[in-house]
């Protein structure tokens, strides 16, 4: 029970405390304390009627006690001083009306004046409730490093006056992009390495964003994209090896989640969404239909290239073009791209060359891809392709 409340409500509790204390470190400490007290009391005294309000109130009181003890009543805590002089009536009825301030907290954590890694770490810590150890493990970064990075970011938020607010309209699109990018990055981190908990965490964050900003088509589109991609999770690996979409056992796809993702996608389209995440979700949807409409996929990728100018997207368009116009046309597109440090550039090129019967060149390209691939399942996949080429030649 408590674990569930922790997962669901940690972000809300921390957000309410940051709003009050204007200091993330203090807020986290107080929230942690409140959850510890709950772990002790709830099994004994029963779960309070409004667990969130109970946690926020308890944490707030703890923080006030602590600040009293440490006599930190400086300018920054003038607000607290006023509250201490005039403590509010604390009845449970009043406490149930704490506003949900997670959105303010997300925009603080993903403020562009923070480095991307700090944004990701802070979001996972303050909204997702992941511990510093867990974040370090997920990103293969030593505890010390991640801990320092988070502390530095929290200090900067406090000292540089990074706002705790939803950005004004003229800044909102670009700031929302930053937030969505962080959530997508967290998802992909879980996706590439097969670390399921990060993907699940990203979906939770995505759901929270849609709940908080139900009319932002791109937020809705991102959630649809995450749900649709994640629905294929079970089919993506077999015995620790990557399985390509064409070879995936469709019986392992999570039908219920696909339906859910499609409903969310329809909602995004109904909101007139035509931004990059909505387009990517629509493409993911098309990829899961049988047979696949490669014409439509190629044209959506073309629209996405228009929006993003991304060579990686152009690479994906080339893959769709290969299905519509054949590998020669696709290879011509791929060869125009400057993506020599990108492993999928080489594996895509290798695949096209193989289909054109240019076996030696394909072999070289697979080698180049292999050199750039760190994760074991993907490495094994490429090694097998190389073996297949060798077998075919003999």
């Amino acid at each position, binding site marked *: 029970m408590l674990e569930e409340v922790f997962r669901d409500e940690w972000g809300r509790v921390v957000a309410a405390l940051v709003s009050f204390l204007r200091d993330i470190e203090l807020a986290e400490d107080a929230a942690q304390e409140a959850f510890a007290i709950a772990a002790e009391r709830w099994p004994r005294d029963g779960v309070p009627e409004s667990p969130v309000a109970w946690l926020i109130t308890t944490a707030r009181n703890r923080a006030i006690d602590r600040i009293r003890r440490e006599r930190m009543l400086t*300018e920054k805590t003038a607000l607290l001083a006023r509250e201490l002089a005039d403590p509010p009536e604390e009845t449970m009825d009043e406490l149930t009306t704490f506003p949900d301030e997670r959105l303010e907290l997300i925009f603080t954590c993903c*403020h562009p*004046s923070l480095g991307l890694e700090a944004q990701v770490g802070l979001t996972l810590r303050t909204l997702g409730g992941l511990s510093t150890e867990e974040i370090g493990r997920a990103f293969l970064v030593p505890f010390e490093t991640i801990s320092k990075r988070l502390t530095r970011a929290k200090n900067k938020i406090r*000292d*540089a*006056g*990074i*706002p705790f*607010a939803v*950005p004004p309209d003229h*800044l909102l699109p670009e700031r929302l992009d930053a937030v969505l990018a962080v959530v997508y990055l967290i998802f992909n981190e879980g996706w590439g390495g097969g670390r399921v908990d990060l993907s699940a965490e990203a979906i939770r964050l995505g759901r929270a964003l849609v709940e908080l900003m139900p009319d932002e088509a791109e937020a809705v589109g991102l959630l649809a994209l995450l749900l649709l991609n994640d629905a294929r999770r079970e089919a993506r690996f077999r015995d620790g090896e990557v399985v390509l979409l064409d070879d995936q056992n469709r019986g392992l796809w999570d039908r219920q989640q696909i339906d859910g993702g499609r409903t969310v996608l329809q909602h995004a389209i109904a909101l007139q969404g035509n931004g990059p995440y909505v387009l990517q979700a629509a493409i993911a949807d098309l990829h899961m239909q049988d047979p696949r409409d490669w014409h439509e996929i190629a044209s959506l990728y073309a629209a996405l290239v228009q929006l993003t100018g991304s060579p990686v997207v152009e690479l994906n368009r080339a893959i769709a073009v290969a299905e519509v116009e054949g590998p020669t046309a696709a290879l011509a597109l791929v060869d125009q791209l400057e993506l020599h440090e990108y492993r999928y550039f080489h594996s895509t090129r290798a695949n096209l060359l193989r289909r054109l019967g240019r076996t030696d060149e394909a072999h070289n390209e697979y080698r180049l891809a292999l050199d750039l691939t760190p994760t074991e399942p993907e490495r094994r996949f490429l090694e097998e392709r190389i073996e297949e080429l060798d077998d075919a030649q003999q």
Partner: protein
Amino acid sequence: MQYALLIYSTTEGSRPEAERLGPIDPRIAAVLERPRVLNWARLRDPESATTIRHDAGKTLLVDGPFIDSKEFLGGVIVVEADDLDGALAIADELQQTRTDGAIEVRPLLP
């Protein structure tokens, strides 16, 4: 909160000092006249700098700026803003009038 906007220029991109001494670009002057701009100063070229340091109790004078690089500090503006976004908005407005360099925004110690 108070923030310092540190106006950096580059040696290739900056106008000659004689030219910079003339009237301030009216777009920048308009910003400097706002009530939330608390103070500002323009600096002479880095060649005019003398750097003082102490080494083993001895005073050393060096001709030139502390950090000798292609980027140099050309001026400082101190502004009052509600939060970092407020200060960044002013910095962005100023930077749009410039063709090179960059503006570093830093909170002042209270």
